[in-house]
């Protein structure tokens, strides 16, 4: 399994096309909020979830999707789904 740093790097690649605040994107931490900090809209957050599913061959359920609001939460969900495979 990828380390947390590797997961963040992959996630950043996935998120990049949808980011509206480049400055915030340069200083991403686990606390970074996709909507509030990166100014991504909720419809593009769905695209990110689908891209994550494809990249890791996992399925994100509705409950996880509701929690997937920050970089840290997304990493936790990816780790959890990969562990359950």
């Amino acid at each position, binding site marked *: 399994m990828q380390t947390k740093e590797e997961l963040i790097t992959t996630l950043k690649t996935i998120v990049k096309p949808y980011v509206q605040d480049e400055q915030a994107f340069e200083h991403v931490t686990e606390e970074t909020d996709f909507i509030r900090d990166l100014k991504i*809209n909720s*419809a593009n957050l*769905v*695209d990110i979830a*689908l891209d994550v599913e494809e990249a890791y061959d996992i399925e994100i359920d*509705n409950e996880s*999707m509701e929690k997937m609001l920050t970089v840290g939460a997304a990493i936790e969900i990816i780790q959890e789904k990969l562990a359950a495979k």
Partner: protein
Amino acid sequence: MNIFNKFYVQPFDYILLKLPYSKPFLFVDTLQVVTENGVEGQYTFPADSSFYAGHFNKMPVTPGVILTEVMAQIGVVCLGIFLLNDSPTDELEVALTATQIDFYKPVFPGETVTVRSSKDFFRFHKLKCKVEMLNGKDELVCRGTIAGIMKSKSHA
């Protein structure tokens, strides 16, 4: 108007009744096909539609934003209503979130257009479709992708 008083009831009339639009911003006349994977419907532009008075000066042509709206209402919102049909409430929350459309032919006053859409995905309330519009001669008018958020208000 109660459609059930009519002698002949179109099978997809219940979808039209749930559309959150009315004149002058209702752009769906009939639906020919609705399945969980796509929809086909038609709209005729009344020659006296208000936008023809100013688009363009002395040369009425249907604005691209209106063609886009026709594609969104038939191709995405009607399909979304069909897909949400099992939901417990009729209250809809609808928002257009992205469009990417290429235009090929003009549409003039009085023309009837056919819209066909096929579902790309419907997940986490986001419905994304590939949509195209054809004119009465079966010529391609415009084509692209449209996405929106569609949910019943009980989920809010």
